[in-house]
């Protein structure tokens, strides 16, 4: 079981801020592939993964990062704070 969080337009496209899922994905990219295969709204959110950032347990990571032991994955657009 892993918590998956979405922010900004990723959240809007998927239509929810957070969900708890069961996955056998090894890497972030595997997890994204699983989500995209589920429903059109996930495919829309991850249509261009260069425009999506990922954090594992609240630390920035890469799509190639392994997710073993991770409790919280978050997907969001490039940040625009400041």
């Amino acid at each position, binding site marked *: 079981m892993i918590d998956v*969080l979405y*922010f*900004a*337009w990723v*959240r809007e496209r998927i239509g929810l801020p957070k969900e708890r899922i069961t996955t056998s994905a090894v890497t972030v990219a595997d997890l994204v592939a699983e989500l995209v295969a589920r429903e059109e709204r996930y495919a829309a959110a991850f249509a261009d993964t260069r425009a999506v950032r990922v*954090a594992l347990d*609240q*630390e*920035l990571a890469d799509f190639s990062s392994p997710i073993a032991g991770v409790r919280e994955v*978050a997907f*969001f*657009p*490039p*940040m*625009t*704070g*400041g």
Partner: protein
Amino acid sequence: MHTVRIQDRPFSYGTESDSFAAAAGPAGAVVTFLGRVRDDGGRLSVMEIEHYPGMTERAVTAILDEAVTRWDLTAGLVIHRHGRIAPGEAIMMVATAARHRAEAFAAAEFLMDYLKSRAPFWKKEFGPDGAEWVAARDADEQALDRW
């Protein structure tokens, strides 16, 4: 005195600047930066800032710690709002205190560059023509290369 505050309520730039300077001890140089919502001639009615509770505090604290170490700051402060913010209102501020001005300026610019691109905040602009997420600028990402 290294302080990070992520909050939805407004803050007073002057009051925070004075408190910071008072707490910064004998530093010769204090730099403060205030970021505000621009008016853009009525194109914008309100800005909404989304953030990632938990990660935000962690990321901003890490950025501030890095600045404090690199420039030997006697004090550092970051305040960043989230939620709805009207044109002209303060979005965020940073403050740095160091022995000399070069360090205080460099640290403040470093903080701003990293907060722009590495702290989990997202701005959405609401105007008469609808709402739009602010796009990240390549220039903001490139600004990190200088550090």
